[in-house]
Structure formats: structure tokens, C-alpha cells
């Protein structure tokens, strides 16, 4: 590893990393919100709406992020949607993630034992309270690792934003690679940054999970 490279490209790589984190965090948050709303709407059980949501999920999941991003960025203006690169990137990431998050939440809802909800219903608890106080906590225990999976995948999808000239990590690293041809170093830098982001995220998630599951006395599958 060339120290000279670090001193020359360090600042721009760091700012690129900052941009990556910013786009990822906002896009993920947006995706989670949209996904959750979709999963909730699906629970209404209204067939036409479900068909529409299903189609949305399958199309968004089924096509590459790059394609969606280009459609949004280049096709958007013809629908009066003039987004600059970074906002387009964030919105695109949010839409892309929302389809996956919606499915994760849908699966989570299905795994909550009916009896818990029935008990709350029979006490007259309003749906909002049942959702917040009963369904979400029991569901989160199960879906948290999967949610984290998806967030991690989205950290890496942000590289696609570089194609819209969003100055994120990949975009900056590309400069270093093109100017110096130091391809291994570029790859190494990328690996370290992404691993760092993912590790911090996983550790945070581990903490949250420990708090959520502290009432489970034993791990499944372990002998007493």
C-alpha cells in the first residue's frame, strides 16, 4: 500500500464515503417507510389494491437498480420530475429498497402468532396500538436480522449512484483508479470502507437484537 496514494486521495475518498453514508442512510430510511406502508396496505386485504402493490413489488424487485435509477433520472424529466443527481439517487434507492422491505415486513406479520393479536383485540385495543405494542415487537425479533441483511445490501447498491455523477465513494475511488491505475489499492480501499460501514451497522443491530430478545430464555436447538 502506497502511503503517497493515501495522502493524495484520502480526503476525497473520505468525503466520498461521507456521501455514501448519507445517500445510504436517507435511501434506506425512505425504503423502510415505503415498504412498511406497503405491507400495512396489503393487510387491508383489498384485492385490487393488493394486485397493484404486488405488481409494484415484482417490477421493482425484478429489475436492476441501475435501470430504475436511469429511468428516474433520465425519464423523470419527461414526467415533470426534475431531480438532481443526489436526490435522484436517494429517491431511487428508497424505491428500490421499498419492494424488498415490504416483503420482509409481510413475512414478519405472517409469523406473529394469531393468539397475541386476538388477545389484544379482545381487550379492545385499537389497531395502531396493537401494531405498535404487540405486533411490531414480536415481529422485530424475527425480522431484524433480515432487515439488517437488506440494509447491508443497500450499502453496496449505492455504488450505482456513481453513474449519475453522485460524488460518493465509488465515484471518488474511480478517479484514483483511472489516474494512477492502482486498481488493487482501489479495491482494497473500497473493501475496507464498506466493511467498516457494515460492521458498525451489524454491531448496532446486534445490540438492538439483544434488547429485543432478552425475554427469550434459551436459544432454540440448545439442550437444556
Amino acid at each position, binding site marked *: 500500500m502506497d502511503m503517497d496514494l493515501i495522502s493524495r486521495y484520502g480526503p476525497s475518498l473520505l468525503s466520498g464515503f461521507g456521501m455514501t453514508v448519507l445517500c445510504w442512510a436517507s435511501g434506506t430510511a425512505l425504503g423502510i417507510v415505503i415498504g412498511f406502508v406497503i405491507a400495512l396496505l396489503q393487510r387491508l386485504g383489498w384485492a385490487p389494491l393488493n394486485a397493484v402493490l404486488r405488481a409494484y413489488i*415484482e*417490477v421493482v*424487485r*425484478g*429489475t*436492476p*437498480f441501475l*435501470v430504475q435509477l*436511469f429511468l428516474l433520472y433520465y425519464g423523470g424529466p419527461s414526467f415533470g420530475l426534475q431531480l438532481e443527481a443526489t436526490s435522484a439517487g436517494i429517491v431511487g434507492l428508497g424505491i428500490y429498497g421499498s419492494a*424488498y422491505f415490504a*416483503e*420482509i415486513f*409481510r*413475512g414478519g406479520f*405472517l*409469523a406473529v402468532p*394469531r393468539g397475541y393479536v386476538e388477545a389484544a383485540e379482545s381487550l379492545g385495543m385499537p389497531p395502531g396500538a396493537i401494531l405498535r405494542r404487540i405486533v411490531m415487537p*414480536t415481529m422485530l*425479533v*424475527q*425480522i*431484524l*436480522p*433480515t432487515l*439488517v*441483511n*437488506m440494509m*447491508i*445490501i443497500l450499502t*453496496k447498491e449505492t*455504488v450505482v449512484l456513481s453513474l449519475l455523477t453522485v460524488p460518493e465513494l465509488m465515484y471518488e475511488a474511480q478517479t484514483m483508479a483511472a489516474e494512477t491505475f492502482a486498481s488493487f489499492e482501489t*479495491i482494497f480501499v*473500497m*473493501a475496507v470502507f*464498506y*466493511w467498516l460501514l*457494515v*460492521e458498525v451497522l*451489524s454491531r448496532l443491530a446486534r445490540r438492538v437484537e439483544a434488547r429485543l*430478545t432478552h425475554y*427469550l*430464555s*434459551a*436459544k*432454540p*436447538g*440448545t*439442550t*437444556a
Partner: protein
Amino acid sequence: MSFTVLANNLPFLLKGAGMTIAVSLAGILLGQIIGALTCVMRLSGGRAGDLVGAVYVSFFRGVPLLIQLLLIYYMLPLIGINVPPLVAAIAALGLASGAYVSEIYRGALNAIPHGQSEAALALGFSESRIWRRILLPQAFRISIPALVNELILLLKASSLISVVGVAELTRVSQTAAATTYRHLEMYAMAGLIYLVINGCLALLGSYAERRLKTA
């Protein structure tokens, strides 16, 4: 004009799609096996098992797949292990997807009441049989939506295997686009093929969901 260009290139795109499907399927299978094994090891292999599993998950979720591919294909030869491109591609996909799948299973297991494995223990089931017959089937059922997510992501991530020289769908469409300067048409075509494959995966998922429903 653009139709003839499409028609001329369609066979190559389809061939690329075939490669994408084949490598992804192999990666998926490998990932399911590695994922289930990792999850079992982390939950019942004691502290050492948990640690090994945690390191594995941390690395393969943390480091971008592109880099994993380059490592397997270019770095392993440096220590004397030469892997053919196709093997490197399948191994990388399987290892990466295994890390995600193991986490999906780990979450699902939290939703299975402890009493169920106790009942099996009390009947004299071995731990491996409890995993095979009681826990994993249920974890699988609970996780189908998340697993289908993962399959679709894996299929799309397989576009990266071109870095080891495997001509899969995305690569073929890029090449065709660069030669013909018909970017839009080629990418639209490739996108459509991805959509169809992913649609099939999703259908498979909802079929499995319905089949395995017990309520």
C-alpha cells in the same frame, strides 16, 4: 432497424441469460446449504462455533461481492490455488448468499417456541434431527418472503461475475450495446429477461408459501 438489431442480438442475450440462470441456481443451492449450516453452527456449536460463524458472516456480508470475486479469482492463485472462472463465480455467490441466508434463518428461529425442540428432545431426537425435521423446516416456511428477496438479489448480483470472465446476461447486453450503440434497446431487453426470471422466482415463492401454509 432497431428490431433487426435486437433480433440479431437476442440469441446472444438468451445465451447470457442461460449462464446467469445456471450460475445463480448453483449459487443459490450452495448458499442455502452454507446458510443453514452456518446458522446451526452459530446456535449450537458453542462459543467457538458462534465465533467462526460470526467472522464468516461479518466478512461475506461486509465486503462487496465484486471484491470477494476478485479475491477468489486473483488472490487464491497467489497462494497456489487456481480456480477456474465458473467455480470462482459459483463459490463467491454461494458464500456471499450463505451469509445472508444464515441471518434470515437465525431470525426465523427466534419465532419458533422453545417448547417444540424440547418436545423433540424428550422423544430422544438427536440434535441434528431436531434441526432437520423440526426447526429448519419451520424456519424455512417462515422465511420464504425473505428468502425470495435473497434469491432475486442473488440473481441480480450475478451480473458481477463477469469480472472473472464469465459472460452472463448483463455482460452480454453491455457488449452488444457498446458495439451497436443501441444502449436503450439492449438494456431494455436484458431488463425484460431479468424481470421474467425474477417473476418466476417470485411465483415459485408464493407457490411454496401457499403449499406450506398450515393455518
